[in-house]
């Protein structure tokens, strides 16, 4: 554990050390030809924010909770002001608004909608959380992820999993594997599953093409569930040995789902997500140059009409869900705004401060000379662990499309060989599980678990889990599928 922490600490230091930054700058200049664009230095607020997310809850959780918005605002300002001084206030405003309007808004509204609707569905019953029940729940959730999205499946499954395991003391590992499988890996089969795939779909990748990743997903699922079973069994035995036992005094199990009509609203949200991927390609939403039409906000920043439609549908679904569901269900579900509030605050800072890193990536993507599937898998995945996986996916899809590597999947960005596209997609989707900030549902699951008596691992603790469990699995993926 200590060794892994030291390794990660070293990586973080390397990330923010001047040498690394200078190297990045040199590469940026060489690639883009722009003079003395010190984009690398502007990544420091992003690294700073990540360190705060990682360290503050360990040092003083109460203070962190109280001053989270202030810390996020501070690092955002520390990025915006120097950026404005260097590139001009207009450019800075445009960059910030662009990420807030085009990326963050749709992202947080989708999370909010699914959080609200799933919070109105409750599972009543006395199924006892045991290794086999947990395997069953994780399997259902993983298979569901590709069809209602990783966020949808996570929000829908998180409370039943917490509830069934409420009798147990050792349950953090269950939520860690929940994040691995349901919040990330399960979403690789369709564009509904994870936003990067939706982006690919809107760029011409066929809707059902992602099903090609079924063997990779199944392999990962089987390996992870196998590991989970043994870890859970060990912890289950320890719980029993301490005299803990589930309440199974009544013969027979009664399972009752309340608020089931909310599944209609989940379907509404899923439809909204699909529309956001399909509408931009329709001529009625495009101008003469093929750009997507939208509501002008500032200079070149537009809120696209398809995004507005998506937001309206999602918010309507959330509103109807609240109006039509008994408040008692939310009470039983311990529904609070804490989790969504925490995610909304943290991710607004992450979205703003990661802009220079994404700019660097965009300018350097083509010059990285990544041509092999295994390289694409690890580079896309490694960056998706810390950055937003949607733009990361797009950068490497663009890079692969521009390389003209022969036959493959025809997209709007060029023809991409199947294996290469698989590597980009898998890397972007799977490796979001590497850190809490790799994918939004990760943070949501953590926040909901924290609120319900589960001591979740810290940022570094979680990273240790992914280094010990996920990285070896991804290495196996590389050998079996991407070499």
């Amino acid at each position: 554990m200590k060794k892994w922490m030291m390794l990660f600490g070293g990586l973080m230091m390397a990330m923010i050390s001047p040498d690394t930054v200078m190297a990045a700058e040199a590469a940026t200049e060489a690639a883009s030809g722009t003079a003395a664009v010190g984009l690398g230095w502007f990544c420091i607020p992003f690294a700073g924010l990540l360190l705060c997310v990682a360290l503050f809850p360990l040092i003083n959780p109460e203070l962190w909770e109280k001053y989270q918005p202030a810390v996020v605002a501070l690092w955002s300002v520390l990025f915006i002001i120097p950026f404005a001084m260097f590139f001009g206030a207009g450019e800075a405003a445009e960059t910030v608004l662009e990420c807030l309007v085009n990326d963050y808004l749709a992202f947080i509204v989708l999370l909010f909608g699914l959080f609200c609707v799933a919070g109105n569905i409750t599972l009543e019953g006395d199924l006892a959380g045991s290794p086999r029940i947990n395997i069953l729940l994780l399997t259902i959730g993983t298979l569901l992820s590709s069809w209602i999205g990783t966020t949808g499946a996570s929000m829908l499954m998180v409370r039943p999993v917490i509830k069934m395991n409420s009798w147990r003391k050792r349950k953090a590992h269950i939520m860690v594997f929940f994040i691995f499988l349901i919040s990330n890996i399960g979403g690789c089969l369709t564009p509904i599953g994870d936003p990067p795939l939706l982006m690919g779909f809107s760029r011409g990748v066929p809707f059902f093409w992602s099903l090609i990743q079924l063997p990779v997903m199944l392999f990962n699922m089987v390996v992870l569930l196998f590991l989970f079973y043994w870890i859970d069994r060990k912890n289950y035995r320890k719980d029993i040995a301490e005299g803990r036992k589930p309440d199974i005094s009544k013969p027979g199990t009664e399972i009752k789902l309340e608020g089931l009509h909310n599944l209609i609203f989940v379907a509404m949200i899923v439809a909204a997500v699909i529309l956001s991927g399909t509408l931009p390609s329709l001529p009625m939403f495009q101008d003469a140059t093929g750009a997507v039409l939208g509501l002008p906000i500032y200079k070149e920043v537009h809120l696209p009409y398809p995004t507005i439609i998506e937001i309206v549908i999602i918010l309507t679904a959330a509103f109807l869900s609240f109006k039509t569901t008994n408040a008692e269900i939310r009470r039983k579900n311990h529904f609070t705004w804490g989790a969504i509030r925490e995610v909304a605050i943290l991710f607004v800072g992450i979205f703003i401060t990661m802009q220079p890193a994404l700019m660097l990536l965009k300018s350097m993507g083509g010059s990285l000379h990544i041509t092999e599937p295994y390289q694409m898998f690890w580079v896309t995945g490694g960056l998706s662990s810390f950055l937003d996986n949607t733009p990361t996916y797009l950068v490497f899809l663009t890079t692969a499309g521009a390389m003209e590597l022969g036959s493959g999947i025809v997209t709007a960005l060029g023809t991409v060989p199947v294996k290469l596209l698989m590597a980009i997609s898998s890397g972007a989707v799977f490796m979001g599980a590497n850190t809490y900030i790799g994918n939004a549902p990760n943070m949501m699951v953590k926040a909901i678990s924290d609120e319900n008596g589960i001591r979740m691992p810290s940022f570094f603790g979680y990273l240790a889990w992914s280094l010990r469990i996920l990285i070896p699995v991804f290495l196996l993926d590389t050998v079996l599928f991407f070499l």
Partner: protein
Amino acid sequence: MNHNEEMMRELAERIYDLDAEVYIQLGSSLGRVFDRDRERCVTEMMRLMLERDQSHVLRSQLALISNMARTISDRESRKMIMSEYNNILHDVIELPTSFGTGEILDQSRAELLEPNLKKHLKERFSNQDHLVICIGRTYGCGGSEIGFTLADSLKINYYDVEIFSEVIKRLEAEQDVIEDKAAFPSPYKKITGKDGTEEYVYQQRAFVPEQKNGIRTAFRNFNRYHGLSKRDAVYFNQSDLICDMSKNEDFVIMGRCADLILTNNHIPHISIFITAPVERRIRRIMEINKGMSEKEARRLVKKMDHKHRKYYGFYTGSKWGMPCNYDLCINSSSYGIEGSVELIRRMMEQE
């Protein structure tokens, strides 16, 4: 109980009450931090306060309560609860790092004892407690006979497979489809005669082999056993039953991890492990089962002991037959059945 212990108990009770209040205020059904009975949780917290390297666990549990408390929607209630939380936290921080003095006494076991117990086993039990004797034994050592004779001489009930039959009733399952994993083929079974009197009769087998089931049965069992395996469902029900019984009657119980179940539930009992050298056990099995070869008997002893070691290890996390897990270990080959019973009785009744 000294001043420090009183203080710790009061603090532990305040923590338990705080958790209960948070849970009531939230109305959540997703579980709470201290989800077991009050006495057990309070005792557990006191143990954490006492142990040198465990105080962080208590603080971690407090932090979990505060995480939940912060989500209470009613501002007044939240303020009141958080204020109590802060007071408790202050008191916890003020606790000395450890009250430990290097004592070898295991608190979890010692709390079952009256002060003079170390001399007199029977005095472990207060007037409100029932005499419960848990006997673990290796296969073929005569443990069942010793247990049965002991129960008979003390005029108390003897339980072995009867526990399992009662659990089956609770689970509304059919006995012939579940194997009693905790049992040896016990030679005795309690039956009720026509006149209503109960007596023990000799029998060869106490359980039947598990049958293979189809998908429909698997679904039915999934529902019946709350998604647990049959073995776990039986164990959990058995635990409840043993605890319930210990509140109502005196008895001798054979195996079934009863010693650990009762220890975990802070119920006074006497735990005994009976064994004998393997060669002597093999000879005895051959004597009882006429026609059984030495090879078969040896295999049976090995198989049965292995099965029980596995079962005990799985549910208790402890080593089966390890002397430090019991109050008394007896080599039955040194005393014989009557002698072993006499030894146990003498230990219990010694003035």
